[in-house]
């Protein structure tokens, strides 16, 4: 048993502790999920449990071992998979395995048996000679797991093993970890995906270094029973406005768009509002649905942020247009023999949110770069606001706002300097620029941070600043690259409030994401897998396609997996 007792970790110079008086017990024979947004303290806690960091206060013990002092003995029974899997990219699959086997002193007959078992287990047997850097994200993840499993660990720590990998690999990884769990093994799995929490036996929910909840996930979601509803029959065109209105009501604690429907969480002890009062007309009805882990998390944090977007108020309404605002025609990009994007076409109307959904390495970012004119397509064309990207890239780019992955801001510049730099780069100057920047500062509440460096901002504010820099010139089109992956659900809701508001003013949005929840906000989705678009349609439409008698109510992830399998079957038939 792993016992964490009154454990605090304080980093020098940090205003508040990374982990604050954590109290928990992790039991063998169970998978404990370490759940929370980026910056919650998950990795720090992992490293402390692995004996790689020492707590400032309190103790962590594994059976009789003090993990901070008996590191050598701990490492003999520990399997640890750090973020990015700890693989040597220049080494092949089998060379990586051999290295870690030697480091853990596994030899003789046991060694070859272990290799055989793990290669079969992970499905990597045909790829033994392949260099780790040439593996897909899912395969890397499996190899990383295999390296951690070499000497059957009694304590297995997996730090965000599923981030960014495709949903099929993610499912296989869960199956594999489940399979190796026995009564002696304690497994910890950290994740920023709240939906993964429901698959864990126990959960430690972290937020800003504090433990919000410890126990079985069902015990937490059970608190929400009877408070979660789907609002059906909403007119599709103004479901965003209806959500915005609903979120402003005291009876509604939280709400998100879920395809054509709204998902609403009611405030405890307040009466359920009549569905027609929410502005969707008489055809709307409220159907109770089972609560999710995320509902409970938001409730613990004190509810969602409301529905208002001051940003949308600042934006002028875009003129109507029948022609698509963003269009890709047969985009193809090859790097040498490798085809990153193959024949991708889509068209986005004014005021529509279009999502490119797919795992890391599927070709989303490459498509994105071609749409911005940053990368020249090998074949095909792209248009933004009627402008041809290859011929008038500069003019087209002036019409679009771009928010890059991980919020590429200038960390050494202050918040104010970042705003002035980006607005200047988009061609604003003089009084107009000053006015635009001042408006962004008001809208995003950046006043207290203006003179501080962007690198020092809390994650949520970094994201706000990145959005501010992308919309300061009031673009017609907004390109968002993984805009909310890893941020806490409250910040994510604030972000989508802004996007919903902008779309209401006629701004056109293209989003890439590997995050299923994010995809639900889109009007239409293109599923990207291995460089090809394997399906396109509204989230509801894609889910309906994956409906089977065995699975009457599939999630978007179910739909994605079903579509990948279908496309692979088709490929198998063709070849």
């Amino acid at each position, binding site marked *: 048993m792993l016992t964490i007792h009154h454990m605090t970790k304080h980093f020098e110079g940090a205003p508040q502790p990374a982990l604050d008086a954590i109290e928990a017990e992790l039991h063998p024979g169970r998978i404990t999920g370490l759940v929370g947004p980026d910056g919650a303290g998950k990795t720090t806690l992992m490293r402390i449990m692995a004996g790689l960091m020492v707590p400032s206060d309190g103790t962590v013990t594994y059976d009789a071992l003090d993990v901070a002092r008996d590191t050598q003995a701990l490492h003999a029974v520990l399997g640890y998979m*750090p973020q990015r899997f700890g693989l040597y990219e220049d080494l092949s699959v089998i060379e990586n395995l051999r290295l870690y086997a030697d480091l853990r002193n596994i030899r003789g007959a046991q060694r070859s048996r272990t290799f055989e078992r793990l290669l079969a287990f992970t499905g990597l047997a045909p790829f033994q000679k392949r260099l780790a850097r040439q593996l897909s994200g899912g395969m890397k993840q499996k190899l990383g797991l295999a390296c951690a499993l070499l000497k059957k660990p009694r304590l297995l720590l997996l730090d965000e093993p599923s981030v960014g990998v495709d949903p099929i690999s993610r499912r296989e990884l869960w199956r594999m970890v489940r399979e190796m769990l026995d009564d002696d093994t304690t497994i910890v799995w950290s994740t920023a995906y709240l939906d993964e929490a429901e698959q864990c036996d126990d959960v430690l929910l972290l937020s800003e270094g504090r433990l919000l909840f410890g126990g079985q996930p069902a015990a937490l979601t059970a608190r929400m029973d009877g408070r979660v509803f789907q609002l059906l029959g909403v007119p599709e065109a103004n479901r965003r406005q209806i959500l915005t209105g609903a979120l402003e009501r005291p009876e509604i604690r939280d709400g998100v768009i879920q395809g054509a429907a709204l998902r609403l969480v009611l405030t405890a002890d307040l009466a359920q509002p009549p569905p027609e009062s929410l502005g969707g007309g008489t055809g709307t009805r409220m159907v109770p649905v089972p609560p999710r882990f995320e509902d409970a998390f938001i409730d613990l944090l004190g509810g969602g942020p409301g529905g208002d977007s001051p940003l949308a108020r600042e934006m002028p309404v875009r003129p109507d247009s029948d022609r698509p605002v963003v269009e890709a025609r047969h985009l193809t990009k090859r790097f040498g023999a490798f085809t990153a994007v193959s024949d991708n076409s889509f068209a986005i109307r004014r005021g529509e949110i279009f999502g490119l959904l797919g795992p890391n390495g599927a070709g989303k970012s490459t498509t994105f770069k071609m749409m911005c004119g940053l990368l020249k397509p090998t074949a095909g064309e792209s248009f933004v606001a009627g402008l041809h990207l290859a011929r008038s890239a500069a003019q087209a780019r002036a019409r679009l706002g771009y928010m890059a992955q991980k919020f590429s801001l200038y960390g050494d510049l202050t918040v104010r300097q970042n705003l002035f730099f980006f607005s200047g780069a988009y061609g604003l100057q003089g009084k107009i620029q000053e006015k635009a920047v001042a408006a962004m500062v008001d809208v995003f509440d950046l006043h207290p941070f203006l003179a501080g460096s962007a690198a020092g901002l809390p994650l949520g504010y970094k994201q706000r600043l990145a959005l501010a820099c992308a919309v300061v010139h009031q673009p017609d089109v907004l390109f968002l690259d993984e805009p909310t992956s890893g941020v806490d659900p409250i910040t994510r809701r604030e972000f989508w409030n802004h996007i919903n508001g902008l779309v209401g003013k006629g701004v056109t949005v293209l989003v890439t994401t590997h995050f299923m929840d994010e995809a639900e906000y889109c009007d239409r989705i293109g599923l990207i897998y291995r460089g090809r678009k394997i399906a396109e349609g509204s989230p509801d439409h894609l889910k309906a396609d994956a409906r089977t008698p065995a699975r009457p109510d599939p999630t978007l992830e179910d739909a994605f997996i079903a579509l990948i399998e279908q496309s692979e079957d088709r490929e198998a038939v063709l070849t």
Partner: protein
Amino acid sequence: MKAPMTPPHAGRMRRLKALIVKESLQVVRDPSSILIAFVLPLILLFLFGYGVSLDARQIRLGVVLEDSSPEARRLAASFQATPFFDARTALDRHTLEADLISSRLRGIVVIPQDFTRSLYAPETTAQVQLITDGSETNTANYVANYAAGTLAAWMTQEASMRSRSAEPAAVLAPRFFYNPERDSRNSLVPGSLAIIMAIIGTLLTALVVAREWERGTMEALLATPLSALEIVIGKLVPYFVLGMTSMAVCTAVAFFLYGIPFRGSLAALIVISAAFLLTALGQGFLISTVTRNQFLASQAALVSAFLPAFILSGFIFEIASMPWLIRMLTRIIPARYFVTNLQTLFLAGDIWALFKPNLMILLAIAGVLFALTLKKTPSRLE
């Protein structure tokens, strides 16, 4: 705890071997190590071999013949004959002054009108004027020295012509040990081997530990039973072999391509190079371990390896002529000992009386660097 406790040293050789194999595979598959170990040294050797020379040959000199006697002409002919000068004559100093100012000439020798008269008149000394460009101090000194030498040679010649019987009372018979041709390349190329090894030895290792941190693999290594000592040794061995191979290639180029004489023994060369390489690798490891960042490490390695080795090793600038404080500073620059050892080895031979103390100091410096590296190699992430 139920699991059997394994002593920490169990499987140490196996772990070390695994690390060495891994590191070697990375070296072979990573073009940057090959570039640093073999391409960079050859480029540097080429630059040092052809680009740096301390010899002044064919310095452009003007000779003004205001006196046209046979004696004055013979003196002018002497200036034209010596290989140190590329001399041309003129009758008027004004025609040459412009060339001196524009650096087309490095100096002007003026043989004045009264030269021959003063030469033969009792109680007077004949004077020859030398004008040089003082803004190029080094060249001006060469011109002055070589001009004085040429003048002295001419005077000896004149004296023997005039009285066959009266030989000069004493003649200076110079002999230059070890480098009779006084070809500066013979001492520069062995010295530059030291500079090159200082750069590449440091650069090779500066990147490797930082790379582990950047790619997140250090975290995985630290969670295995590896100790800090094993990590350091596992990395040292492959890069030591690589560095020695690189040294062998450079020595071969110096010997066969530049024709630098090699008067010592191969065994001495190996021992001397090995001792120095340890200090360079140790310096790189320390930088890498402290910075944990490849870019920073490569910058720090270049600056901290190249500059002291180039300036403070006695490779170009005489240590004896440095101020006391700087002289003391040179004592902790490993390249200083390597430059001396290599120059001796190439030009003089095995002089163990010199090598031994130098080797001791090199090993001591390497010991300090590795001790610091070990101390800074964490067994944790903080």
